[in-house]
């Protein structure tokens, strides 16, 4: 179970990247995080949502979902889409790997999520979509 939770859904438009990270940061602020901790969360959410928009849906438009849970001093964020899914998750998570070299992407998205959050889990099925589960405990309360 959890102490608190929120859910948002929005169209896969790049304009919504800033909305998404600010919404999660505002929800997480009840845990009284430091500025560094909240920046880490915003950056990780931005990466996950950008992945759904560019890779999950690409030229199509779809819905990106975010759920966030608070349990004690830990925040869990789940970012999911019903896009194309990831063929090879292990390959996609490697630093510098990008499936879209044409877009001037750095291939560092998953690496940023992994280093800025405490844990990262990626579940994906081809043709069905992708779900990213990230957790971070805020030290300021403990």
């Amino acid at each position: 179970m959890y102490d608190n939770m929120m859910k948002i859904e929005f169209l896969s438009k790049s304009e919504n990247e800033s909305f998404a990270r600010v919404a999660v940061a505002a929800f997480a602020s009840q845990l009284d995080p430091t500025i560094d901790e909240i920046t880490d969360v915003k950056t990780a959410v931005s990466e996950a949502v950008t992945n759904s928009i560019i890779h999950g849906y690409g030229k199509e438009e779809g819905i990106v979902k975010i759920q966030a849970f608070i349990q004690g001093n830990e925040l869990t964020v789940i970012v999911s889409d019903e896009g194309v899914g990831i063929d090879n998750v292990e390959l996609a998570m490697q630093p510098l790997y990008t499936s879209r070299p044409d877009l001037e992407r750095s291939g560092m998205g998953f690496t940023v999520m992994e280093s800025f959050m405490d844990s990262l889990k990626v579940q994906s099925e081809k043709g069905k979509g992708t779900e990213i589960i990230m957790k971070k405990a805020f030290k300021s309360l403990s």
Partner: protein
Amino acid sequence: MYLKFENNNEKLLVHMMGELDHHSAEEVRNKIDDRLNRDDMKKLIMDFSGVSFMDSSGIGVVIGRYKKLAYKNGTVCITNVNETVRRVFELSGMFKIIKLYNSNEEALENI
């Protein structure tokens, strides 16, 4: 994101203000490339002092400009990055090829 350009002795200094993510990256890259092409400049200084948020899209923007200018025998450096922006750049190992200066003056003297 708001950009302000300054031409300093054939060196293009761009002050960036706002949030650099995938959404703003395209506009930033187009505006900088336009200016580099129009004035045929080979040296670019990107001033991050006004960047309040950046994700890995920023790495793509800097490395993209580096590749373009390297092709013309030019160079790119970045200045005034705050701690959180620096952490994103450091993950990519980008500082091995792109120099970081603490001030625009220092960058203008050295590139």
